[in-house]
């Protein structure tokens, strides 16, 4: 595999830990699906997931961010201009949701009320919770400057790396 990214070797313990993690997440998703949204257990579990993901972001992401916040802020406006249609679609979605929320009318449902028709069911809540969990893990661990790339000598990061925390 000339020029390809070298896959890091995993130990049996690491594979076992990953399998246990997947099973634990699947159990969490199944359990979460059985909870009502007003229950104390639901509030505690969602809050625990949010806190865990933020802590994981801080630990796993230390010194592994591709660019400093200053460099990023300079380039994001240009990027959003290049992806103008996406920017308009996201702005339209958020604006209409806010307008519907402010109106508080049955003829103007919010996006969460529409999704609520799915999350009212156990399976729907579990499915949407699983998607939310996967997205959170991607936002936490994805697009990092990996230690493997540095060790393999694949060149310096594209931009100046930021320091440890946000």
């Amino acid at each position, binding site marked *: 595999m000339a020029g390809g990214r070298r896959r890091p070797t995993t130990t049996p313990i690491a594979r076992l830990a990953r399998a246990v993690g997947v099973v634990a997440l699947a159990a969490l998703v199944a359990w*979460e699906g059985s909870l009502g*949204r007003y229950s104390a257990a639901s509030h505690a579990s969602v809050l625990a997931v949010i806190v865990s993901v933020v802590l994981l972001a801080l630990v796993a992401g230390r010194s592994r961010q591709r660019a400093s916040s200053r460099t990023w802020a300079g380039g994001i406006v240009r990027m959003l201009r290049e992806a103008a249609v996406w920017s308009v679609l996201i702005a339209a979605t958020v604006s209409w949701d806010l307008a519907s929320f402010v109106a508080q009318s049955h003829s103007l449902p919010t996006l969460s009320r529409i999704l*609520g028709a799915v999350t009212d069911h156990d399976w729907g809540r579990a499915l949407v919770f699983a998607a939310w969990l996967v997205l959170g893990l991607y*936002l*936490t661990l994805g697009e990092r400057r990996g230690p493997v790339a540095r060790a393999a000598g694949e060149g310096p990061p594209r931009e100046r790396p930021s320091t440890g925390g946000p």
Partner: protein
Amino acid sequence: MTVGAAVWAGIGAAWLVWLVASRLVRPLPGIDAVVKAFLGSWLGRVLALAAWAEAGWHLFGQRP
């Protein structure tokens, strides 16, 4: 169909059309490119995680 439902249907259709178009037409940036752009720095990542956390709390802990 209410006015709100019709508008949501329109917005959903626009998302779907652009998702497919950005997949088929190579130079068009996909939604993944937008998400990846936000993960390029701590500031963007924190903004994305804040939106994710708020959405989760609202969807699973409050009245949708």
